[in-house]
Each structure stands twice: as structure tokens, then as C-alpha cells.
């Protein structure tokens, strides 16, 4: 299968300048050799903490920034060095949804004008009236003549999504599309994105730092640390058997809805801060905070390699599946208890997923229902879908 989007060794360095003379003081390597694949119709989740370069990846893929090195193949064409004129037709198929719904809409324009701009900028006749576009994203046609500030955050994000979908793209890069929204609204937006994906066969690159949202929407997940991808796997493998120490630490930071499991949860607390991308550590970028760093990690930078089909890790000492079980049984247990809840939440929208997971622990589901009042409460924060 040919990928819809594929990046190879994508690098973005920003010059850092100091003083009056704008003397070049060095480079910040925001994105350092990122290779990603997005297949048609799938959702690739991209997670990582603030400052790890996820948003720069989004800006490179949509060519808001020009990559320093590397290739971006989209629908058989390399976008890395195209100029704006050559990019214009490509942009019809490659759209973006932004983080802040308000700052991504021009405050001086009415919704009608905002939603007409995709056609105008592409020099096309509108093939769908604004009212129809609004209906597609769950807004009322009479909203067309209002200004963005008259909407709530969730409604404004729907307008942003409608604008991205107006040109019928094949891939939408979503740069933290729900992190500025209330939890209950996040669920609605995630559902909307899923529904639109089913309806139009869209592919998403879904960037977030919220693992709950990523888990809910992604088919595959890539984890980034300090400008590089450290682990890629399909969703369930990543959550059930994370192999990279950083992924494990990231997952262990998610609170569990079950109070007992939450008490027993072993947190892998990372020491120190994210190192400066101006002066990254030698060898493995994560070694300064890694609980299992060894001499080899400082000397040699681990390449991304497959440890199982579809599961790639950039670590000299990845956790193997059996090792995984020995190391942290608490985690797995907590995780299992976690998942039925997710299924419940998910069930409304994807019954087949529910079935698949339901085999896991039907008896635990029973156990869950006894606890359910507190759990649901806790769960609401994580699996927004449970909120009606």
C-alpha cells in the first residue's frame, strides 16, 4: 500500500541570533530526522511533551515552514522544495486544523466570508454553499453572518474544521485541535472528527499532548521526544506494551479512573527538564532522563528499528513484551481496568471496537460497574466521549 503522506529524515533547524548585529549564535534543531507515514483514511497520533517539535512537524507538513533537510512525499509528490505557486493545488488535498479556535479565525470576517475563502484563495467556484458546510460540522445555517467572537470555543473550532474540509482534502493535519477546549467539548469535537473521517475517508495526523484524546481517535501512534520519533506502534500495542522508556514514563503519568488502581499505579517520574534543543545531549536524546541509561546511550544514537511488525523503537534497551510483564505488573493491571471504561465510552460510536476489547475482561467489567459512580466521574475527564 502506498502511503498518502511519508516523510523521510525531516529536519528543521532555526537559526538563533543574538544582539544588535543579529550575530548567528547557533541553531535550534526543532525537528531532527522525523520519518512518518500516514496511510489513506487512517489517523496517526503524534504525542510528546511541550517543546518536542510536534507543532513544527505540523507546520513542515503543511509547508508553513520549509524543511532544512529531508523529504515530504504527499500523494506521490515531494513538497519539501515546492514554491507557493506549485503548492497551491496540493493544498486542496492537505489541510490543517489549528489549536486555538479563536486566533485561527480572522476576527474581522463573518463566518460566511471565512468559509468562502478556501474557494476564493484557490480560484475555484464554491461547490458547496456556506450553509451546507455549517451543517456538516453541526452548526446552524443562520450562524453564517456572525463574527467569530460570537461563538463558543467548540463552535469556533467547528468553523475551523468546516474551513479545512471545504476543499475536500485527503489529509487534515490537526495541531492540538482540542487542547484549548473544555473537556466535554473536546469529546464532541473528537466525535465530529471521527464522523467526518468515516463520511469522507479522510486521513488525520492528530497532534496532541493529551494521551486520552490520542487514544480515542488514533489508529497508530508516534511518540516524539526532543525533535525525534522514539516509538511508533498501532494504538493498542503502544498502550499495552510500550517499549521505549519515555513512552512508558509518559503512559505512567496518566491518572487512572479506578481509585485502587490509581493508588497502586507506579509512576515513572522523569528527573530534570527537557534538554535544550540548542545543545542536545550526545547519543540518545533521552539518556539524560532515562532510568536505564548506560554508556552505550551516550556514545551511540539509537536508530528507529522494528521490534515487531509495525512496532518501531529508537532505544538500545527496549522493553520486550515478556520483559514488559515482569517489570511492571501494576501498570498492566491498571491498564486493563482502564480499558473497559474506554470501551464503554467508545461504544456509542464504534461498537466493533467494543466487541474486540470486550474479550479482554468481561468479569472486570462487572467489577467496574460496582465502582461506577466515582469512576465515571473520573473517567469523564479522560474519555470525554462518555459525556453525552
Amino acid at each position, binding site marked *: 500500500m502506498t502511503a498518502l503522506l511519508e516523510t523521510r529524515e525531516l529536519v528543521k533547524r532555526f537559526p538563533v541570533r543574538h544582539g544588535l548585529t543579529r550575530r548567528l549564535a547557533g541553531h535550534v534543531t526543532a525537528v531532527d530526522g522525523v520519518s512518518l507515514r500516514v496511510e489513506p483514511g487512517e489517523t496517526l497520533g503524534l504525542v510528546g511533551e511541550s517543546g518536542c517539535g510536534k507543532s513544527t512537524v505540523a*507546520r513542515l507538513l*503543511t509547508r*508553513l515552514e520549509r524543511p532544512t533537510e529531508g523529504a515530504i512525499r504527499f500523494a506521490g509528490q515531494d513538497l519539501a522544495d515546492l514554491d*507557493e505557486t506549485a*503548492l*497551491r493545488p496540493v*493544498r*486542496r488535498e*492537505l*489541510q*490543517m486544523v*489549528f*489549536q*486555538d479556535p479563536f*486566533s*485561527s*479565525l*480572522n*476576527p*474581522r*470576517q463573518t463566518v460566511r466570508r471565512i468559509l468562502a*475563502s*478556501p474557494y*476564493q*484563495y*484557490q480560484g475555484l467556484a464554491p461547490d458547496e454553499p456556506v450553509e451546507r458546510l455549517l451543517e456538516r460540522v453541526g452548526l446552524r445555517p443562520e450562524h453564517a453572518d456572525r463574527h467569530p467572537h460570537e461563538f463558543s470555543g467548540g463552535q469556533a473550532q467547528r468553523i*475551523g474544521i468546516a*474551513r479545512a474540509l471545504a*476543499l475536500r482534502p485527503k489529509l487534515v493535519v490537526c495541531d492540538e485541535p482540542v487542547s484549548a477546549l473544555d473537556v466535554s467539548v473536546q469529546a464532541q469535537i473528537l466525535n465530529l472528527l471521527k464522523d467526518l473521517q468515516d463520511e469522507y475517508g479522510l486521513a488525520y495526523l492528530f497532534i496532541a499532548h493529551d494521551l486520552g484524546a490520542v487514544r480515542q481517535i488514533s489508529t497508530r501512534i508516534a511518540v516524539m521526544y526532543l525533535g525525534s520519533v522514539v516509538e511508533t506502534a498501532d494504538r493498542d500495542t503502544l498502550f499495552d506494551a510500550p517499549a521505549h522508556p519515555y513512552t512508558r514514563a509518559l503512559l505512567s503519568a496518566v491518572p487512572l479512573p479506578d481509585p485502587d488502581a490509581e493508588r497502586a499505579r507506579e509512576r515513572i517520574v522523569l528527573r530534570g527538564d527537557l534538554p535544550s534543543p540548542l545543545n542536545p545531549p550526545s547519543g540518545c536524546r533521552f539518556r539524560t532522563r532515562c532510568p536505564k541509561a548506560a554508556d552505550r546511550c551516550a556514545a551511540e544514537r539509537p536508530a528507529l528499528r522494528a521490534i515487531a511488525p509495525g512496532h518501531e523503537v529508537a532505544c538500545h534497551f527496549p522493553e520486550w513484551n515478556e520483559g514488559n510483564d515482569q517489570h511492571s505488573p501494576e501498570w498492566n493491571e491498571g491498564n486493563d481496568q482502564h480499558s473497559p471504561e474506554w470501551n464503554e465510552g467508545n461504544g456509542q460510536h464504534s461498537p466493533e471496537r467494543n466487541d474486540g476489547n470486550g474479550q479482554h475482561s468481561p468479569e472486570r467489567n462487572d467489577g467496574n460497574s460496582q465502582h461506577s459512580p466515582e469512576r465515571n466521574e473520573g473517567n469523564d475527564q479522560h474519555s470525554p466521549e462518555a459525556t453525552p
Partner: protein
Amino acid sequence: MTVLRRLLAQRSAALALAVVALLVLTALAAPLITWLAGTSPTAFHGEAVDPALGGLPRGVAGGISSGHWLGVEPVNGRDVLARVVYGARVSLLIAVLATGLSVALGTALGLLAGFLGGWADTVIGRLMDLLMSFPSLIFMIALISAAPGADRRLLLVVVLGFFGWPYVGRIVRGQAMVLTRGEFVAAARVLGASRRALLVREVLPNLTGPVLVVATMSIPACIATEAGLSFLGVGVQPPTPSWGQMIATAVPWYAADPAYFLIPGAFLFATVLAFNVLGDAVRDALDPRSQRR
């Protein structure tokens, strides 16, 4: 129109707006006012001054009478009311045109600097720094006196506008820079907008607020500078009246005839104050963060 409502909700702003409106009306209706008062700004009235006292106006308070409502000038006896209302025309016209010129230049160049960045920003930014740190008053005096034959009013507009644009440009540049890096401009770029469309459709409409504020602030500054230049003798030349020039001729008479000094001074003061208060109020009304009360 919520901006206008918020503007009028402030009492000082409403008052300032009324003063400005009255002043504009006065300037527009100058011929009507002088016709009603039966005077002219250029006619000499020898009978209204006392040659025995060195040309001091006859009567109280600079010769205020039914024929000359605000008195007459010493020595030549020209009507002060007529000169003040015609002076308002000159002052306002010069200030508005100079402001228009500096807003046009400042918006265009500031927008380019902020939007394009890089070399354009460096060149335009340095030019603005240069002009703002320039001793502009001295330069204006030198320039205007070096062009004796030119129409002083036109020259004043050009010189004030040229030295005023960096103040507009700096604000527009900063704002354009923020907007250009903002997400809605990024969204338009992702949609394939051309540079021209980004400038005209996305960035420029969001600059009207700050530009309006600097424009209202620039008008009183221009009025004051014009008055200052006329006071120094390089501004509007007699017989065309101007407030600064009236104040300048009143200086030797301030002890004997204070009214002649006070009347144009009061008009100048009220005008500059009203425009400044209005400018402040416009800024407050346009800034959603300044929630009053």
C-alpha cells in the same frame, strides 16, 4: 457600532467629541460666521485702535465690542474672531492632511516591514529610527525657510506628514508582525492564499483599530507643531491667519493687551486637549481588555 457606543459612554469622550465637532463646524462655517459678525479676517480697522497708545485697541479686553466680538488686533485692528475662525480652518486642514499623509505612508511601509520581515523590515525599521531620532523641528525650520516661494501650507503638510509617518509605521509594523505570525494568517496560507490576499484580506482589516488611534493622537500633535512653527515665523505667513502666528504676534503685547494673547491660546489649548482626550477614549473603546468600571 459598539465602539461608538462605548466611546459615548465615557463622559469625557462625549465632551471631547462635542468640542471637536464644534470646532470642525466653526472651521467649515467660517465665512458664515464672519458674515454674521460683519467682519473679515484681513480688513484693517484703524478706527478700532488708538494710535496715541502705540496702536492698542480702544475699549476693554482688547477692544471687545458689538462690532468686534472678540476684539481687534493691536496696530492694524484686524478682527480677532474672524482670524480665529479662519485660523481654525488652516490649523485643522493642515493637521488633517498631514495626518492623512503620515497614516498612508506609515501604514503602507509599516505593513510591508511587519509582513515581509527580513531585509524589508531592517531597511524600513532603520529609516524609521533615523527619522524619529532626527532633530526634526530644526530640520523643518531649515527646510521651510529654504523654500521661500512655496505655498507654506502645502509645505507644512508635506513636512509634518513626512516626519510623522514613523510613529504610525512603528505601531503598524508591530501589529502586522503579530498578525502575520498569527494562526488565521497561517490558516489562509494553508488554503493557498497569495501574498497580496494575505495582506489585503487578512492583515490590513485588523489594523484599522490601532491606525485610528494613532491618527486621532497625531492630529493634535500636528496642530501643536503647526502652531509652534508659525510662532517661530516659519509656518503660515500673514495675511493667512493661524493660531500660532497670532500667539507669536501677541507676545510683545501680553502685558498691555492680554486678551489678544489669551483668545487664540485658549482655542489652541481646547483643541489639542479635546483631540487628545478623544484619542485616549478611542483607544480604550477599541481595546476589549480595558473594561471600564
